[in-house]
């Protein structure tokens, strides 16, 4: 008890300082700069984050994984970057893939819908579905990578950001352990699905 009392001010300080520390290190957000893509870790890290259609789909992957529970909670975030990289490679070398933007919008609709309707298909179907959509996301990013750049750091940032978005989805999806949280998670899936519909309407 005394130990807890001793730590209380420290905990309060940490609670205050952690968000401040995060806020203090923020930098200007330049969404998909028209002047070119920065080929460094930060450029790669921000690349998927500033594409809202990518963001909602990747968060949906995490949400669905958390909703399905183990082993989907880690298998889906493992499958996604692997297949996304294959799609990215196809985009980089110029392999054509029709309807990339439509595919991305449909991925948000489908994945969000899966969460909203609490769909629980077999694991392999979930993995195939996520993998199929990952190709579209990877292709879109790969096609935007500038030729001539040695993009190890860029790709590291890019993949880490993708993983962080999955993690955000998983963290929020963790609320589904509680009845009210379950409603919130399904609601978030519905919102993602509606946003995907809006993107689809924009492209059609």
């Amino acid at each position, binding site marked *: 008890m005394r130990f807890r009392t001793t730590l209380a001010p420290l905990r309060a300080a940490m609670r205050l300082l952690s968000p401040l520390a995060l806020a203090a290190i923020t930098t200007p957000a330049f969404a998909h700069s028209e002047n070119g893509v920065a080929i*460094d870790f930060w450029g790669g890290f921000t690349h998927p984050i500033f594409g809202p259609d990518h963001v909602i789909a990747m968060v949906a992957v995490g949400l669905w994984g958390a909703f399905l529970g183990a082993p989907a909670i880690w298998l889906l975030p493992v499958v996604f970057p692997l297949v996304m990289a294959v799609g990215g490679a196809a985009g980089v070398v110029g392999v054509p893939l029709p309807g990339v933007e439509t595919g991305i919008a449909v991925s948000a609709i489908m994945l969000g819908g899966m969460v909203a309707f609490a769909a629980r298909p077999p694991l392999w179907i979930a993995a195939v579905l996520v993998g199929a959509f990952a190709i579209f996301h990877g292709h879109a990013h790969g096609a935007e990578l500038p030729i001539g750049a040695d993009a*190890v750091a860029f790709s590291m940032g890019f993949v880490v950001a993708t993983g962080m978005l999955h993690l955000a989805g998983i963290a929020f999806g963790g609320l589904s352990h509680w009845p009210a949280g379950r409603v919130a998670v399904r609601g978030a899936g519905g919102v993602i699905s509606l946003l995907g519909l809006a993107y689809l309407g924009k492209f059609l």
Partner: protein
Amino acid sequence: MNRFFCIALVICSFVSTTPALAHTPIMGIGGVFGGIIHALLIPEHGLTLLALGLVLGRRQQETRRSGLLVFAAALTCGLVAAALTGEETLAGDILLLVAGTLGLLIAADWAPPRLALALAALAGVTFALDSKPDGISTAESARMLIGSGLGAVIALAVVAEVSVFFRGYALFIAARVAGSWIAAIGIMVLSLRIATRMTLG
């Protein structure tokens, strides 16, 4: 609270990273220490060491130690070759291929001992061949190569021995996710390099 602080710390670490520019000379740092820095700060080198360390860390002690020895032996041979030759090689690309393969093995949680040892040998040779610094004297180059070798072996040993403790379920999953990330980075960068060669020659 602790968990929240840890998450905040991890995010801060990622956000506060600076560009990792391959083969960037660090002004004022040369010799053996410069070589160590050189070995560890090149992204594909760091990735390969991390991936190989994670693969070896999941093996039994005998295989793990054998892997470290094989890597050290191959690295030494590669460093001697790098010191004697000055030709451009595809070492960087092969190193990325090895890193990507190791990443796939981690993600699949499947790594037969012989395959792990073969990849350790390939990683050692290509790591060394890709470590030769450009535009400096022979003596300075030799010192930096020795530093690169030392840095690589120490870093690999640390990662492999630390990852032995990745036995819990959460850490096991974290390692598999990290493996998928490493494989994804390897695939994307290799494809970009191939596309660059096809486009620019």
